[in-house]
């Protein structure tokens, strides 16, 4: 420990203190930010279960519905400090409302005050911002502790890409007549360049990876679009897409584009840096040898990459699948309703991944030969 302390320079110490200070400040803020919310927030101080009722639905599913009487203290607004009575109904499966514990903070509405002394009201939602912040801090801590520089880069790239996406969507919302796909195309271009430069730095292999990624995602988009048009989108259940406020096709295609981008970048970087490191070891290496190595590497990673994408997409549908099955919906209907879009995403992404292997192979060869010609 003393050894470690001695090795830390003054500048690192200042940096550590600054980060520590920011972490502390954000934690203190998020636990005391109630007054920044318009909506009343109340903290549960007492909870009693007042009734429980067993229910059986038409499919024979058994559950218990509980009623919970809560006494909570208002934490902001004009009635700050006053006690409020709330009632929460939740199921033993916690499928919609959770069971609240003493100390939980809730967004509430306050009923018109009668003559009675105690306020009453309704529960709207749970205050979750402090959990989200703690999770974000833990994420940043684990990634930088394990990955050091690489981990910090991953965190930074997540933040930058999230901001870029959000800005792109702002443009889309504010301008009525630009296609989402066009906007996301521009965002993807910027995200690719920024992420790859962040991950592997200003090197020839990075430029090769950028070109390969852009070609790969473009080709993936063209193929998916062509298949969708040729088949008239047969088999896709756009009506089942969640959270819709806009025409689903545009959002879906943009999602395909963005979703596959990370995997395509991963493939492009892996192949280009492997080939460049072979070239750096032996400047006279033949194109044939490079191609053969590139192909072997490509074969090794194609299986796992398609797998990663598949699970990332399809797992999210598990709760809805369960809901359908337990309500007695038939297998085929449930699958086509819930999985058609996710599977299309995964398959399109897989096609992009596989195509990017030869694309990055030849792009990297081109860059290597250009470098050779200059020597």
């Amino acid at each position, binding site marked *: 420990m003393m050894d470690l302390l001695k090795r830390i320079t003054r500048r690192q110490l200042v940096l550590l203190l600054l980060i520590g200070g920011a972490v502390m400040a954000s934690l203190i803020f998020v636990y005391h930010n109630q007054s920044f919310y318009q909506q009343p927030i109340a903290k549960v101080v007492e909870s009693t279960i007042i009734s429980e009722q067993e229910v059986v639905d038409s499919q024979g599913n058994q559950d218990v519905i509980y009623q919970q009487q809560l006494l909570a203290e208002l934490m902001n607004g004009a009635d700050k400090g006053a006690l409020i009575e709330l009632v929460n109904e939740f199921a033993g499966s916690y499928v919609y409302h959770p069971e609240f514990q003493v100390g939980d903070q809730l967004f509430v509405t306050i009923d018109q005050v009668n003559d009675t002394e105690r306020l009453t009201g309704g529960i709207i939602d749970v205050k*979750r911002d402090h959990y989200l912040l703690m999770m974000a801090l833990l994420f940043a801590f684990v990634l930088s502790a394990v990955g050091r520089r*690489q981990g910090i880069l991953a*965190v930074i790239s997540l933040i930058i890409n999230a901001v870029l996406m959000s800005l792109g969507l702002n443009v889309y919302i504010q301008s009525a007549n630009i296609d989402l796909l066009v906007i996301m195309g521009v965002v993807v271009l910027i995200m690719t360049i920024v992420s790859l430069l962040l991950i592997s730095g200003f090197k020839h292999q990075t430029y090769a990876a950028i070109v390969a990624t852009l070609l790969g995602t473009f080709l993936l988009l063209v193929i998916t679009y062509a298949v969708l048009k040729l088949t008239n989108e047969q088999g896709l259940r756009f009506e089942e897409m969640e959270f819709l406020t806009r025409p689903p096709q545009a959002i879906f295609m943009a999602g395909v584009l963005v979703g596959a981008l990370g995997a395509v970048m991963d493939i492009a970087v892996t192949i280009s840096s492997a080939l460049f490191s072979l070239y750096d070891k032996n400047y006279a290496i033949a194109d044939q040898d490079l191609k053969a190595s590139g192909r072997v590497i490509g074969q090794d990673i194609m299986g796992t990459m*398609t797998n990663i994408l598949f699970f990332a997409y399809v797992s999210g549908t598990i709760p809805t699948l369960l809901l359908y099955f337990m309500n007695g919906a038939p297998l085929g209907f449930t699958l086509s309703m819930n999985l058609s879009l996710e599977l299309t995403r995964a398959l399109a992404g897989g096609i992009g991944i596989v195509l990017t292997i030869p694309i990055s192979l030849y792009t990297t060869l081109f860059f290597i030969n250009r470098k050779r010609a200059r020597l």
Partner: protein
Amino acid sequence: MNVLVILTLLLLVLMTAIGGKKGVRSFVALFVNFIVLLITVLIMTDPNANPIILTLLACIVISSNTLFFINSINIKTKIAFVATILTTVILLLFIQFITEQSMVQGFGDEEIEGLTIFSFYLGLDFVKVAASVVIMSTIGAVADIAISTSSPMFEFYRHNPSISRRDLFLAGMKIGRDLLASSANTLFFAFFGGYLALLVRFKDLSYSWGQMVNAKVFSAEMITIFCAGVGVAVIIPVTALLSTLYLTTKKE
């Protein structure tokens, strides 16, 4: 013709053309994994089955399928397998705790809208289901890092057989670290792509910053992203440690 059929055939043709035998094996593995996922969900509909245990069993089948079938059964893939399962167990417990605390299980207001015809009182613990979703979405990436770390470590040891335990572990950490940023990125973008409709909705209905971060669906998805990041990070020291222990104890 159906979109899914054409895309599936296209993927099969491309994987065969570019990946050869290994490409075909990868395609079969993908198909088998899909079946495993479906069977897991079907068994999960029985309220007596614990979703956490089921997820763990599914992860054992899925990762052995990914590791042993696409690659082959050897000591490198065995170590990657043990590391994957160990990490999965650690993550499952942690994620269940987080889900319970932040109460993001089940369905949010935005989702309930389209599902009103269903009965929601299913007697199934949705906290555990939520933990299962997070684990299943990361299992592919975790298994990938495990094999990509353990395999070069064996090569490294073969070239430097006299290396000390500490140095071998540090070499493994370095190998894993180089994979971390791009694997994390792969997952981030996959999730972003999936959440696009939700983000558009939040912007369209002009949710305030406060409404957004406290909404159940948004929190659930951010927590998934964070847990996925933690998962691909935690697998690195676990794999490096197991490989080091195996290689150096064998020597003595």
